[in-house]
């Protein structure tokens, strides 16, 4: 009731009724509670939260935890089955991709249409039209029907419209997942600026973005409110939970991997560096996911890979790394038959499958091969300075073979054994960036007038 609240949700529940036939749904409307023509699925259950005016609140949770449903209810496109929502102020929403666009209409017509929908007058929209086009930056496509747009273009336009309707409350659902990095940066800049004057509800499973942007976080799990509180704290809890459940799941799913589980069940690495996450927007943060034993693999199976992980040089397992710092890729293997001269290697690939870098133990152990008897375990550790990587998803393929570099038997090769995601980066136009020792850029004394060569850079390595 208080006018200091932008959103108040109380006891929200949403059950989706699964009908076998559309006409059953109509029958249900008129039958009321006398008969049930459906099966129920509860997407949300007793969720209550408040968002104060001017607050930025993130909603996190796994796929299917009810985040999007909750947002739809807040926006009023879905009716809750129980509970109620109060909102104060004009809401602009980006639910799913493409917002409320009509595919047959041109970009221009859709701008006006969306303006009318949120209640702007024609004059108000005309006044904003140029700014919207400039923000969307899709050029002459603005006169083309939306159906000819790429997904990225539609999102740009949708975001541009939403950014210019003078909303009091912005609701954004995973909208920034598409769109190129430059546009995402533009959106983030806008959102940071918007935070100063409006209320923002932000859904993502990208905890980095959430922790970066939000004051407070609501964590949904299986349709229920699991926790709500300061962003960093809740994000930490969420990550920890995600981490544990992934480990637990892989243990349960692969009973054959029981001995391996004993090896890998070392305490989940709590990443202390999360605490300083917020520092620079260009820091090369790398989020590392768990070893995926079940990933596609091939080989003679004379050996198996027990675990693949990133480690700190001191030995703790890492869930987070920063480009430029020293890390260790550790690969544990077990011989299932005698191996005369095993080789262990890894290969880092980007999302397009390009091999970025990699190495193996061949040269190191060439002189004195590490022969393994059946049942022996071994561990390979590659210590290196993590290069700076452009944002995106990467995977590491690992393999254990027996023989020589150019003549060997592949015992096990796991394609995407480990994946990691680079969140932000200063690297844009190359496959990798190297951590520079030093970069200098200075005027050469006396030479400037003579040569008139501007900005000659002297880069020292």
């Amino acid at each position: 009731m208080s006018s200091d609240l932008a959103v108040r949700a109380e006891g929200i529940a949403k059950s989706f009724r699964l009908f076998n036939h559309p006409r059953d749904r109509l029958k249900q409307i008129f039958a009321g509670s006398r008969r049930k023509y459906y099966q129920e699925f509860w997407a949300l259950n007793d969720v209550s939260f408040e968002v104060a005016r001017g607050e930025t609140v993130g909603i996190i949770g796994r796929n299917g935890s009810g985040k999007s449903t909750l947002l739809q209810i807040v926006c009023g496109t879905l009716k809750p089955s129980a509970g109620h929502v109060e909102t104060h102020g004009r809401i602009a929403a980006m639910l799913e991709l493409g917002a409320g666009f009509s595919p047959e209409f041109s970009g221009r017509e859709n701008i006006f249409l969306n303006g009318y929908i949120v209640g702007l007058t024609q004059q108000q929209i005309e006044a904003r039209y140029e700014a919207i086009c400039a923000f969307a930056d899709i050029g002459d496509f603005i006169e083309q029907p939306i159906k000819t747009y790429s997904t990225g273009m539609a999102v740009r336009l949708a975001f541009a419209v939403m950014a210019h309707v003078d909303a009091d409350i912005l609701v954004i659902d995973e909208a920034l997942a598409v769109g190129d990095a430059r546009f995402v940066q533009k959106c983030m800049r806008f959102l940071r600026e918007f935070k100063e004057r409006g209320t923002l509800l932000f859904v993502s499973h990208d905890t980095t973005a959430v922790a970066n942007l939000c004051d407070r976080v609501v964590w949904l799990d299986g349709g229920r409110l699991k926790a709500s509180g300061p962003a960093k704290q809740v994000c930490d809890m969420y990550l920890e939970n995600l981490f544990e459940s992934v480990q637990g799941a892989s243990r349960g799913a692969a009973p054959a991997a029981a001995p391996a589980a004993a090896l890998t069940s070392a305490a989940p690495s709590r990443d202390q560096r999360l605490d300083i996450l917020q520092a620079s927007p260009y820091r090369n943060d790398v989020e590392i996911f768990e070893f995926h034993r079940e990933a596609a693999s091939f080989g003679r199976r004379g050996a198996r890979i027990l675990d693949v992980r990133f480690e700190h040089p001191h030995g703790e397992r890492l869930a987070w790394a920063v480009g430029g710092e020293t890390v260790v890729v550790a690969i544990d293997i077990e011989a299932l038959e005698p191996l005369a001269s095993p080789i262990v290697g890894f290969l880092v690939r980007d999302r397009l499958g390009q091999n970025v870098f990699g190495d193996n133990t061949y040269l190191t152990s060439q002189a004195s091969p590490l022969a393994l008897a059946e049942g022996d375990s071994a561990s390979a550790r590659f210590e290196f300075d993590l290069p700076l990587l452009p944002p995106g998803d990467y995977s590491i393929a690992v393999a254990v073979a027996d023989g020589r570099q150019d003549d060997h038997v592949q015992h096990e090769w796991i394609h995407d054994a480990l994946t990691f995601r680079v969140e932000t980066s200063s690297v844009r136009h190359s496959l990798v960036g190297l951590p520079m020792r030093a970069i200098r850029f200075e005027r050469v004394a006396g030479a400037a007038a003579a040569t008139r060569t501007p900005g000659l850079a002297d880069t020292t390595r």
Partner: protein
Amino acid sequence: MNATSQPKQPLAVFASFWNHRTLILNLARRDVVGRYSGSMLGLLWSFFNPLLMLGVYTFVFGLVFKTRWNPGGSDNMLEFAVVLFSGLLVFGIFSENINRAPGLMLQNPGFIKRVVFPLEGLPWVVMCSSLFHAAISLVVLAAVMLVVMGSLPATWPLILVVLLPLLLFVIGFSWALAALGVYLRDLQQTINIVTAVLMFMSPIFYPASAVPKEFRWAIDWNPMTFFVEQARQVLVWGHPPDFAGLAGMTVGGFVVAWLGLAFFQHARDGFADVI
């Protein structure tokens, strides 16, 4: 969350238009212009269409069949065409709205799932678009009658009084059909047949007096009979309309519109779940 959530009030029928008039009128304009988008003559087609139809009716019924509306009446070969045209004009408002209503929600899933859209305005969009076409047809009809007959009946402006109750009936049924169409996908096909039958079961191509006595009930039962005949009274024959009947129809039409809107608003809660 304001006026839309109170369909119980009779005035909601008008509020549903007034509150979103800019949006509705713009969508209607888009609907009218969009129909001819890509064609070279564009909007001119909405003039040529009725004009050409009027010409064809005159040729076929006036010259070829030599049909006369009233046996022993005037010998003007344009008369039958004008009578037919005015009947079709009125029926056209009815059929365009009713035929499009069941598919209205299904064609705009984005408006239902992704934004808070005044869905109850969509039938108004079709209504405005159909009224625009009717208005053009009326202009064409007036022009032709002026040229050929030299004058218009003084009762012409009363067509507005005839159309008002019709609009209320039509918008009411549109709301009901638009809501039902979401749940019953077969409605779309069914309704096309129903309007085609109704067209031939109303005195558009023949005077009601030509129908044998024992089948007159079928014609009289059709509400469109009343509107077609009243429109002809004021547009063609120059007789004053049945004011008492129109007043009754206006009240009835208002009740239908109100119930239709109430039904629509009740059923819309489930739209997002179905589409």
